[in-house]
């Protein structure tokens, strides 16, 4: 690097005054410039984030810089590993401060959230038992002015749940006995006093014959007639899809389709453009070269803007819903797919093109016979891969209002329905895994 040796003392003095100058004097321009700009910048950053004490260890790097200048002037090999590690460590400290990492927070109510989510993940709500609610009602009287003298006891129907009450009349606080029969055997349920304010007054367990006995202390004091109901929820065998799944599955499907249509729209635009973005097809004329530059520029711009940003813009433009998600995926996808397609075209063998051209074929025939067969398998692979990525992306853009399962998920979370949220997360994970695997297998096949 440094052809002529320089005076080490002078180099050291220069670097002591202005960091990096000694290195520049010794011919190490890159390192000299990095030190000259980098050290003051580091000090400024540490001052700016309010960690003035970090400037002291930064001074150690400055001291090293003096030694390094002398070393460079001698023309030796001067390792910079130590100061690089020191600066990295200092910046980690600054980063810790700036990002506001505050471990105790994890133990407050957030821990509850994490616990809820993990709990939900452990028992996702995919299916539930199909249940049949059995009820039987009986009437009793709180005696007093205006209360009926007697109540009619419902006739008992064999095989149907039946509830009888005794005594028929009970003042407040008096104990009432209930006898039930005809319920599903070995189930649990509850006793409820009907009325404007429904109160649960006891729990019941049916025996092997489907009968039970229970008592409660009458809480009603206003004279009149009252209904007491025995309610047993019997699992009648079989499982059914949970309500969460019935809500979330269509949203998941929406996400998959959203990704599909987004990919398809990207494909429609990226496919023709990609031929203009392939250098090997656009070397013919200055106009083609210009088109190449413009196309590649467009791809780069579209690709470098995150899908999420497009999604926020699209939601502002067309409102919350899957259409916004489609726009975001399609626009970003044009850039991503276009670049991959162009590179696939650029990597084809030139020989077949030459051979087809030599037969007197025109440009269209050259593309169809020599270019297309070479790129189609790669195009299919890239498109599948994009769809796969878009399903994952679509989930995220759903969070900002782009429709699909992501939108459902954020709603569950906003309503603190952690178990439902966890179910949606499982659903997403499952679909992504399946698509991942399927697209890998297909790409393998056509490769």
């Amino acid at each position, binding site marked *: 690097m440094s052809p002529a040796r320089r005076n080490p003392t002078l180099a050291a003095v220069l670097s002591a005054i202005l960091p990096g100058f000694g290195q520049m004097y010794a011919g190490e321009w890159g390192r000299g410039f990095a030190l000259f700009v980098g050290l003051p910048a580091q000090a400024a950053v540490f001052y700016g984030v309010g960690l003035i004490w970090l400037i002291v260890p930064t001074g150690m790097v400055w001291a090293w810089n003096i030694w390094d200048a002398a070393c460079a002037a001698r023309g030796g090999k001067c390792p910079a590993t130590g100061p690089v590690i020191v600066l990295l460590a200092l910046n980690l400290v600054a980063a810790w401060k700036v990002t506001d990492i505050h471990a105790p927070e994890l133990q407050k109510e957030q821990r509850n959230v994490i616990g809820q989510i993990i709990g939900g993940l452990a028992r996702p709500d995919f299916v539930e038992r199909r249940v049949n609610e059995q009820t039987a009602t009986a009437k009793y009287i709180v005696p007093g002015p205006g209360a009926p003298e007697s109540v009619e006891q419902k006739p008992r129907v064999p095989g149907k749940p039946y509830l009888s009450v005794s005594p028929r009349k009970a003042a407040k606080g008096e104990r009432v006995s209930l006898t039930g029969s005809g319920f599903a055997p070995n189930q649990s349920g509850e006793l409820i006093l009907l009325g404007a304010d429904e109160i649960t007054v006891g729990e019941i367990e049916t025996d092997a014959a489907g009968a039970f006995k229970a008592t409660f202390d009458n809480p009603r004091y206003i004279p009149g007639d009252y209904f007491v109901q025995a309610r047993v929820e019997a699992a009648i065998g079989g499982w059914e899809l949970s309500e969460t799944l019935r809500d979330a599955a269509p949203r998941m499907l929406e996400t998959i389709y959203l990704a599909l249509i987004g990919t398809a729209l990207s494909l429609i635009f990226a496919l023709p453009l990609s031929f203009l973005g392939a250098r090997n097809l656009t070397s013919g004329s200055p106009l083609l070269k210009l088109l190449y530059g413009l196309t590649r520029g467009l791809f780069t711009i579209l690709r470098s803007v995150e899908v999420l940003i497009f999604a926020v813009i699209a939601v502002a433009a067309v409102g919350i819903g899957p259409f916004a998600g489609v726009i975001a995926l399609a626009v970003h996808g044009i850039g991503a797919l276009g670049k991959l397609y162009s590179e696939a075209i650029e990597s084809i*063998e030139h*020989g*077949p093109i*030459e*051979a*087809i*051209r*030599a*037969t*007197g*074929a*025109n440009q*269209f*025939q050259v593309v*169809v*016979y*020599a270019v297309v*067969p*070479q790129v*189609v*398998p790669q195009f299919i692979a890239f498109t599948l891969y994009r769809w796969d990525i878009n399903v994952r992306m679509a989930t995220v853009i759903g969070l900002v209002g782009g429709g699909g399962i992501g939108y459902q998920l954020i709603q569950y979370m906003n309503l603190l329905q952690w178990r439902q949220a966890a179910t949606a997360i499982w659903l997403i994970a499952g679909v992504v895994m399946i698509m991942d695997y399927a697209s890998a297998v297909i790409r393998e096949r056509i490769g």
Partner: protein
Amino acid sequence: MLRIEHLTKTYPNGTRALVDVSLEVPAGQFVSIIGLSGAGKSTFLRCINRLIEPTSGRVWLGDEEITAAGPAELRLIRRRIAMIFQHFNLVRRSSVMTNVLSGRLGYAATLPSLLHRFNAGDHADARANLQRVGLSEKGQQRADTLSGGQQQRVGIARALMQRPELILADEPVASLDPATAHSVLDHLEQMNKRDGMTVLCNLHFLSLARRYADRVIALKAGELVFDGGPDEIDDARFKEIYGEDAIQVEIA
């Protein structure tokens, strides 16, 4: 039949691949072009059908000046000139049949050809040419499932589809083993002797040139250094073309 005047090609990086080459080839001749790798043999062939644009000089095929032709005219001339390549240049993923039919693209109407539609005559030709090169069973196979020698024979069938007057063969056997090389060159010889096609064939091996060519021309650093009968190349000539240290290698 083929007339070349002062053909020169200088690449943008300054490499002088061809320097003032003039040559006249009568119809029906089998001309072998020999020379070291990088002597300009491939450039020479590609300047004839303008896969590479010559820097200066003129080329005539019959009465038509190739070097003055516009794009449409050039395509019409290219139909009359078939080309065979060292690496066969088949479209690997396409079927053998499609590769053979593609030799007919210069004659086919654009739109049907883009939909892979060829007329019945072209299909019959393709079958006949595949039979001629001994691959009539292989039509539906993918081109890359064939061996090197078979692929080159597909290349020959593709060339035959053009019914060319001139064949440019760029190292057609350099990627093949000696036995296969002979079978490929025998096909070229047959096309020359039986069908009367003029052949320009780049060859590495002088022994092959001696065996097949009516006339040998030699290029060295882009210049024409020899033009004569295959028997006129003695040891002195040989060293002139290939350099002092070269020794002759026989290929059986």
